[in-house]
């Protein structure tokens, strides 16, 4: 697979504080790469460095084999994206904004502009001034601007901000389409973990400026789900846990007033159910707990960190 973005030993300090510490990662053509981390982990700083907003203290960034420092204009011609919020000239129309951006790239035709406007579903209001747009509409126009010049590398920082559920779904389809059909490398950062789970092919997890690991999304989920978990809902959870505590093949995960949570394989569910019923515990429901990326994430980053 073709490497589109490569960072090597990337570091950045603000004053004495090290924000980015030795990050090396590669993003390939045709994949959606998720950049995951709690607030202040260094996601946006890394993205800003890749997009030329911030200088690099040490290390290197190359896009399509072009060094960002040495061949800035050619390297940046392959990059499109949105950092934080999509910002446009508010007194101008969305279309004028797109036209202005198109002027700075080679080979963007008026037809291409119409095409991306249609793609993001903004045909109706593209001629209105940007200051009349909602945040979601700005996101759409921002996305149109980011993919206007068919970049090899598309970088989106928190792209689902301000989008309604339908919009998020559309965005997901657009991004997957770009990556899998047009062979674009897409780098997405987000803290909406459920979103990442649906969107990304690979995920890089960053915490305190360090890249903790890069995994295929399936791998990551498998890591966190060695054994499935089941919840047995009952009004007498304490009694139930008492009954089960003698059975060493059962791992008790969680006991609350409403249910007990057990880490067991599927074939053991009828046995446990029988055991509890025999012990006089009324079971009102049994539920398999789906492991989310969130849990995997918490497992890897060490749990306690808040992930807004």
């Amino acid at each position, binding site marked *: 697979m073709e490497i589109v973005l490569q960072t090597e030993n990337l570091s950045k300090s603000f004053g004495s504080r090290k924000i980015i510490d030795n990050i090396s990662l590669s993003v390939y053509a045709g994949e959606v790469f998720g950049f995951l981390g709690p607030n202040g982990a260094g996601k946006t700083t890394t993205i800003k460095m890749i997009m*030329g907003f911030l200088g690099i203290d040490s290390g290197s960034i190359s896009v399509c084999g072009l060094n960002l420092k040495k061949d800035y204009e050619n390297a940046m011609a392959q990059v499109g994206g949105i950092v934080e919020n999509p910002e446009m*000239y508010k*007194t101008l129309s969305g279309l004028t904004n797109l036209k*202005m951006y198109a002027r*700075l790239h080679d080979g963007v035709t008026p037809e291409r502009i119409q095409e991306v406007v249609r793609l993001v579903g903004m045909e109706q209001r593209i001629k209105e001034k940007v200051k009349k747009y909602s945040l979601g509409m700005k996101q759409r126009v921002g996305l149109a601007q*980011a993919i206007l010049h068919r970049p090899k590398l598309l970088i989106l920082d928190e792209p689902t901000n301000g989008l309604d559920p339908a919009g998020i779904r559309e965005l997901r389809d657009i991004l997957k389409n770009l990556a899998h059909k047009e062979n674009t490398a897409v780098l997405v950062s987000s803290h909406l973990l459920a979103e990442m789970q649906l969107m990304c092919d690979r995920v890089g997890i960053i915490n305190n400026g360090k890249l903790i690991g890069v995994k295929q999304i399936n791998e990551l989920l498998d890591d966190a789900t060695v054994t499935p978990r089941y919840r047995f809902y009952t009004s007498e959870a304490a009694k139930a846990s008492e009954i089960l505590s003698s059975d060493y093949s059962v791992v008790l995960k969680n006991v609350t007033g409403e249910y007990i949570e057990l880490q067991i394989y599927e074939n053991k569910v009828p046995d446990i159910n029988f055991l509890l019923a025999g012990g006089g515990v009324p079971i009102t429901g049994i539920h398999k707990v789906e492991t989310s990326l969130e849990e995997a994430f918490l497992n890897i980053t060490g749990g306690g960190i808040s992930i807004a």
Partner: protein
Amino acid sequence: MHKLIALYINEMTKIMKKVSIIVLLSIMLVLVLGSGLLIYASQSITSSVGYRDGSYALDSKDELQMVKSDLENVNAQLANENITPSERAMYEAQKTDYENRIKQLTFAAENGFNLNSSSYRANALNEISAYREQQKTLKEGDPEYTAIQNDINTLEKIIQNKDFNGYIEYSRTKMNSATISADEKKVRLETLDLRLKYKVTGEDKNTNYYENLLSQIENSKLSLISGMTIDQTPLTMESRTRTKESILLNEYKLQHNLPDKSDKDNIKDMGFSVMTNLGTTCILILLILLAGSAVSNEISTGSIKSLIIAPVKRWKIFTAKCLSLLSVGLFSLLLLYFFSILTSGILFGFNTGSPYLFVVNNTPAELNFYLYKFLYMLASFVGILVVAAFALMLSTLTRNTAAAVAISIPTFFVGSTISQLLSFFKGEWKIFIPFNHLNLESRLFPNDEL
């Protein structure tokens, strides 16, 4: 290069949508039109009063009436028998004075000139009466008495024959026998030659102006000889050159009968200057507003991001911003120029104003009025550009529009005050303070008279 052009087009697209540009250009046009109308109105007010350039001379006929009534009063007093002898003597003396004055005024009126003007005939007549006074102290038959009588006869003939050449000839012989230094005598004789050459008889409309030019020439020449200015400070090399140039230019004005720029008749020149000066101030404020927000505004609204993501180097972004400011400035300047021509043309007529005079290789030369005004505006635009660049720098460094604008606008206006302050200090370092050098126009066009 094509990236720079694309950036430039983008910058112009953004700038055209700014409200400040429309507001300030409208203010500029309103100010130009308003000041033009104001000057036009003031012209019609002053001309209806009949007041002209401060050189109000009492007409001889009017004075004759006044003196005659004064004489009647004195006669009435003398007819009164109750006055003391000393009072009587006083009135007698007054009576003689009035009678003499009446004689002179009648003579002047008969010969058609104003005794109170600087006409050569008025001068001659005044000289005659001075001689008559002198004669009274002498006896008839005295050689001095005869000499004076000869002079009186010559002067009387000059007046009767309106003989201007004769008057100059007479003045020249008088000057030759005067007891002054040879240098001064030479200068005074040269002035008489100029007077003859350009027919400065003192009897036409612009007399005061021409007399003024002549005396300026004479003073300049004298100060070149003495090496001192009129207020007794030594001439520097620079002021020596300037003095020489002013002699050439003043003579050129006499030779070509050029109008007086400070004269109310020359209101067009003044009107045009007022219009363009007000207009360039508006352009200054406009450019400072635009330059002061050029970078900081993009940063505060975040729109700079779409510039940074684009595959263009930072210096190209900045250069495009500079170029867009420059073109907005030049556009406003051209708008101001042509609008001023139109306004002043409609109000004061399109015929060209008085040209700018300057000296090249010791020869006076003229610069067409409109061309001169255009170059003058371009020169003053350079100072504005320096301040705008300063605002752009502040905008980039502080990332704060308000700070950039608030510091830059006073910089331009207090520049002259700062240079005055600096003049108290000694040393060459002063030349590196830019505020001293913002008014390029006054250095390029030192002979500007408005």
